[in-house]
Structures are given as structure tokens and as C-alpha cells.
């Protein structure tokens, strides 16, 4: 009973926080709401026995990405931001289609059935510890994607350097 209750709380909180994120006028507020949102999501992961993921969520998202956002927001004139409308002119259309997509996805996932069960039962993970299991997999079976991911990060670095470099000539 309790886990369900907690889940309900988290679910509603996440949705509410998401809405707050996308609707706040002041971008700084948005970022802060998002921070909160990420905490909630991380907690949710804990419920789902994914401690490592929760950790990553906290560190990378909350610690890394959001700080990046905060820096970027410093570029923006917040006063002006608060003054003008926050949505583009066509937002009702956007909303319509967003709701539309929600409905169609909702309708189709009603008939969702779970696929085949894997071998990593909760007990197994508990025995092995989550991080270890995940790490093992990452370095064995999923070595290849892992390498690719490293390249992606490399690209990100190059890109950030290239694009954000001061221009060479005036």
C-alpha cells in the first residue's frame, strides 16, 4: 500500500513539476523547478530498484546539465524575459497537438503487454548489487555502445569548443 501511495505522490509531483517547468516566465525559476523535478525522478528510480540510475540522474542532470543551463540563462536578459509573453503565437496549436499526441499514445499503450522476462530478477540484482550488475554489462555486452557514447561526448566537446570559440577575426 505504501509504495503505491508514494508512487501516486511522485507521479503527481512529477507531472506538476513538469508543467511548472514549461510554463514559468522566469527561466531561472524553470531551472529550479526542474531541479526539483529531477530529484523526484531520481527518487522514483530508487523505487524501481535502480539505485545507480538515480545517482546518475542526480549527478549528471542536476549537477551537470542544469548548471550548464543556468550559465546559459545568464546570457538572457531575464527582465525582458519576464516582460514579454512566454509562448509563441501558435501555442494553442502546439497545445492541441500535444494533447492529441497524448491521447493517441494513451489509447495505444492501453493495449500494452509486457515482453519476455529477462534474467535479471530483483533478487539477482540485490545479490549482485545494482551498480556491479550494470557495470558488468556495460563493459561486456554493451562495450560497443559504450565506446560510441564516448565518441559522442568527444564530439560534444569538439562542438562546444568550435562553436563557442570567440571569432578569429572581427
Amino acid at each position: 500500500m505504501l509504495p503505491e501511495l508514494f508512487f501516486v505522490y511522485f507521479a503527481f509531483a512529477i507531472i506538476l513539476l513538469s508543467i511548472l517547468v514549461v510554463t514559468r516566465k522566469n527561466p531561472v525559476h524553470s531551472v529550479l523547478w526542474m531541479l526539483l523535478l529531477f530529484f523526484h525522478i531520481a527518487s522514483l528510480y530508487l523505487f524501481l530498484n535502480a539505485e545507480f540510475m538515480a545517482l546518475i540522474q542526480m549527478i549528471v542532470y542536476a549537477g551537470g546539465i542544469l548548471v550548464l543551463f543556468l550559465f546559459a540563462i545568464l546570457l538572457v536578459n531575464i527582465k525582458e524575459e519576464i516582460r514579454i509573453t512566454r509562448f509563441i503565437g501558435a501555442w494553442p496549436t502546439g497545445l492541441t497537438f500535444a494533447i492529441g499526441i497524448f491521447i493517441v499514445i494513451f489509447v495505444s499503450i492501453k493495449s500494452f503487454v509486457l515482453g519476455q522476462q529477462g534474467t535479471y530478477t530483483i533478487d539477482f540484482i540485490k545479490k549482485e548489487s545494482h551498480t556491479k550488475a550494470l557495470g558488468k554489462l556495460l563493459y561486456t555486452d554493451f562495450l560497443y555502445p559504450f565506446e560510441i557514447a564516448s565518441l559522442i561526448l568527444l564530439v560534444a566537446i569538439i562542438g562546444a569548443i568550435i562553436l563557442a570559440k570567440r571569432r578569429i577575426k572581427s
Partner: protein
Amino acid sequence: MVLSTAVFTIGVFGFLSRKNIIIIFMSIELMLNAVNINLISLSHYLQDLRGQILAFFVIAVAAAEAAIGLAIVIALFRNKATAHVDEIHEMKG
């Protein structure tokens, strides 16, 4: 599942509607998070770690995306001094 759908759609809405590019980025992050919720919960129910691994990669990619996206914004900001998407329409038609 419904939760993730909802978050996803809110992300979609944010993407479709906000003026500020940073917040649009954040909407994208929302969408990715929605996917991650999905993946991790499915991974839990399927008793399979693939989903979590994918989520792990998604987070990595999200970080990369954020970096590049913000770099682009900065480059743009230098030329145009705006962070509003609807003001960026040099090219159309």
C-alpha cells in the same frame, strides 16, 4: 507508463510553445526524462537491465546534446543577441 506519457507530452508542448531557446532545451530534457522513466520502469518489470543501460546512454547523450545545443545558442547569441526562437527566421519560404 501514463506518467511518462504525460511528461513526454508536456515536454512536447513546451517544445512547441516556448519562445526561449533555453526552455526549449529543457523541454527536450523533459522528453528524454520521460523516456528514461519509461525505460527504467520497463527494465524493472521486465527484469532486464537493457533498459537501464539505454537510459544510461540517454543521459550521456542528453549531456552531449545540452553542451552542443548551448554552444550553438551562444554562437547565435553573438550574432543576433536573442534567445527567442520566433525571432530567428532569416531563412524561410
